[in-house]
């Protein structure tokens, strides 16, 4: 029996010790009408158990069905090279099959890793403290919103200024999570020629607000003037929530240094730090803040302390804020972090170091700029915004984007993200990371150009037919 170590004799002896005749008898307190026997139900949607070999065959077939295309999509999930050692170490049984470090003395490995993770995130973001991680970047942003309302009692406001150039799906997740707590999200527009937050519209806000969210880079890949925005929000008595990409922070100003006083809370998606794309999860949200807000920080936090002999050690701390103690008054209902992903991210940052991370970021920017210049020569490719970008940018085309993406898929290219439903006609969001070679950039450019001319001519034909 898979994973069951008992021999028939052992079962008989164990039943004898308990004083029952069968395993079924152990379920005799459960009302009879509720009993079912899944094992006997051959009509069940659950197949009979299969051998590891058979399951491997099925999974391999399905994995091959999806293939390994060349990827130019980003939008919050980014393809980066992951050093081989990252997952070799992260999936060691001692990390992989341990649980939340409730017994600190028996969990010093996990606890020290988390302490190092917190320190690295704090360093990258320029914040004083980080927690042990949250589920993902989107739900992390929701937690940051809740936190800012708790922390900014002075503003006596549950309004959050939410720029439209924050990822649309992030905005939806925030809405889902905070809407039952009376928090309102005020949408702030972006400048149509720049793609960055419209400061004039922002300045027309007269009502108090708890926090302004500043994405850097924003959903279009563009760089915001974070200093101006931060200072403005602080002058109005609002907090600043920075929503950032951790790889970009290798080159970009840390939120702790934005404006005169720095952002108050920083959140982001940690997936770029050594976590595979894997269809959008499991990822890792990070959240960090200034020291004075630490008690409003949700989720697990690890602290360094000493043991009975005065030797340094690590333990979960500030647990009294959490649901298992505070119950209905907890800062959040969260009771885990993304431990395995935090371990991988810590390993990733340790392997690369500051220098390595800056090189990854710089290679992303260099490749992105190369592709932009190649695309400039493709007829009818337009750039709606000025090109102050990190590793993503928007192009507008004169044909239907879904059809373009379909044509690219036929050539085994994930061509980007169609952002038209949220931002207007025929807009494509493209991402280029350090993983792309010059050949791949040429292949993308040529394939796109071919697809465009083919689609344009077929659209003209179709239009012609309709008119005739």
């Amino acid at each position, binding site marked *: 029996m898979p994973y069951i170590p008992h021999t028939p004799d052992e079962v008989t002896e164990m039943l004898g010790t308990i004083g029952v005749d069968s395993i079924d008898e152990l379920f005799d307190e459960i009302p009879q009408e509720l009993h079912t026997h899944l094992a006997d139900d051959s009509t069940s949607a659950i197949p009979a158990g299969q051998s590891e070999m058979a399951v491997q065959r099925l999974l391999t077939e399905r994995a091959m069905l999806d293939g390994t*295309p060349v990827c130019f999509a980003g939008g919050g999930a980014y393809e980066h090279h992951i050093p081989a050692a990252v997952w070799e170490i992260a999936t060691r049984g001692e990390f992989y099959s341990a*649980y939340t470090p409730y017994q600190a003395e028996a969990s010093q490995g996990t606890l020290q890793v988390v302490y190092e993770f917190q320190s690295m995130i704090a360093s990258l973001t320029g914040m004083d403290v980080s927690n042990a991680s949250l589920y993902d970047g989107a739900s992390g942003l929701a937690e940051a919103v809740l936190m800012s309302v708790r922390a900014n009692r002075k503003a006596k406001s549950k309004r959050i200024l939410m720029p439209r150039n924050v990822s649309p799906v992030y905005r939806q997740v925030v809405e889902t999570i905070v809407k039952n707590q009376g928090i309102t999200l005020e949408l702030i527009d972006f400048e149509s020629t720049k793609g960055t937050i419209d400061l004039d519209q922002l300045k027309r806000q007269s009502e108090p607000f708890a926090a302004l969210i500043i994405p850097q880079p924003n959903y279009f890949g563009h760089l915001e003037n974070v200093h101006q925005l931060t200072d403005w929000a602080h002058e109005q008595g609002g907090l600043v929530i920075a929503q950032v990409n951790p790889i970009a922070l290798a080159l970009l100003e840390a939120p702790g240094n934005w404006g005169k006083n720095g952002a108050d809370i920083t959140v982001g998606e940690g997936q770029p730090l050594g976590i595979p794309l894997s269809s959008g999860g499991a990822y890792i949200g990070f959240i960090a803040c200034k020291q004075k807000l630490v008690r409003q920080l949700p989720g697990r936090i690890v602290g360094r302390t000493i043991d009975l002999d005065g030797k340094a050690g690590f333990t979960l701390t*500030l647990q009294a804020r959490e649901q298992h103690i505070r119950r209905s008054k907890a800062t959040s209902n969260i009771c885990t972090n993304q431990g395995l992903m935090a371990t991988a991210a810590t390993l990733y940052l340790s392997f690369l170091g500051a220098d390595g991370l800056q090189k990854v970021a710089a290679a992303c920017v260099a490749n992105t700029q190369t592709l932009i210049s190649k695309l400039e020569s493709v007829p009818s490719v337009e750039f709606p915004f000025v090109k102050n970008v990190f590793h993503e940018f928007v192009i507008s085309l004169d044909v239907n984007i879904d059809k373009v993406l379909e044509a690219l898929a036929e050539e085994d290219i994930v061509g980007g993200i169609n952002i038209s439903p949220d931002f207007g006609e025929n807009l494509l969001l493209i991402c280029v990371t350090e993983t792309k070679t010059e050949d791949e950039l040429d292949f993308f450019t040529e394939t796109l150009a071919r697809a465009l001319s083919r689609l344009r001519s077929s659209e003209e034909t179709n239009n012609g037919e309709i008119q005739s």
Partner: protein
Amino acid sequence: MSKRIIEQNAEHLIFELSDKNRRSSSLAPDVDISAVCENLPEFALRKDNLELPQVAELQVVRHYTRLSQKNFSIDTHFYPLGSCTMKYNPRACNTLAQLPGLSGRHPMAHASMSQGVMACLFDLQNMLMEATGMKQVSLTPMAGAQGEFAGVAMIRAYHEHNNDTQRSEIIVPDAAHGTNPATAVMCGYKVKEIPTNEQGDIDIEALEKIIGPQTAGIMLTNPSTLGVFERKIKLIADMIHKAGGLLYYDGANLNAILGKVKPGDMGFDVIHMNLHKTFSTPHGGGGPGAGPLGVSERLQPFLPVPMVAYDGQTYRWVTEKEQPLSIGHLSAWMGNISILLRAYIYALLLGREGMERVADYATLNANYLLKRLADAGFEIAFPERRASHEFILTLRKEAKQLGTNAMDFAKRLLDYGYHAPTTYFPLLVPECFLIEPTETESRDDLDAFVEAMIKIRDEAEQLPDLLKNAPFELPVKRLDDVKAARELDLNYYYQD
């Protein structure tokens, strides 16, 4: 010991191994950083030097390999942590979930490049529906607590959709997991606690008194956190439904009844499952989990998106366009898919008969361990009841007579190579251990655990200070929690 060996065993942080002039050559691309920065706007650039550890590959590997060895884990130790279902995580699940086609897929890849992963997710939805007796499943919640949140948000959406807006209360038993009341509050509800009687069942008279037109629903775990099956569940379901409320099932203890009882048959309207418990995805040092939802017919329209649908030829994502009453998105895409795949592989390996075996042997092991400990003279909290997959032992006698409390026993167990059971939860039982052996432990291991418990009690009688100062054999001794909380040190780089 030579100085060198002592140094190797010392407590280094990765930062202490760093030298800013060391370079991690082969792992990063070769690029001229300053040339690139010239093309970025000045206002956006970092002004200070980024501080991260600069350590060579071998030294990083060694540092983290050594740290891993300071952990207890399922792979290395018996880990009877009650309510957490620490069972074997089959290696096949990990290996196969990391196949390149699955781990390398971008979430926005075209549907034509996604049929493989969608097939897996669709099959998993169906298997979970079948195993729980629910009408539809959404896989998106990223942990049990997020599943709970989504479940209660759906209860709220349902009442609001019916213009039944006076419902303002969620009922929660006093023994419930702390997430239950925390979740109800996140969804804008008031929490009403109900007591548990001496047999571990819900106090029906007390329940009767607090049910009314203001009741939005009740959150229950069954078997409960007390390690016993709630025998009057059908009556409770009728009472709540008659009052117009809905029933939420916290699937924390599904391992106890998998293949034996379906939550749908008990009358629950919405449930979450903890795949990191029942479906053996890794606990990973505290996540990632996965907390899929199952619902009865009336809550189907409110399920979070996306889900996967199949028309007999092609799989497609179900979004808010097809599911307009959905409570919305809980994550940027569809939750922890790499974890969902591991659960799917586990379900295939077990099959329907293997699933029923989970409950059979988890229950056998728990009742056997209970009997052995009871025979050895330990006090069981609910001696008249059958154990589910876990049970509670109270050390109040030992605390009173010997002055050694449950935490002292827990710490001494670590010295014997056992992870401690859950201590001081549920709060109702004084000096308690919540013990969950799981189905994957052998009888020999259970017997050895009983021997250790007996030995520790002997020690408590003869050398109580030994327990109070335990553990001795671990990388650190008991840690100063008060110092940790008063003098917060959360970041190596932080200077006050």
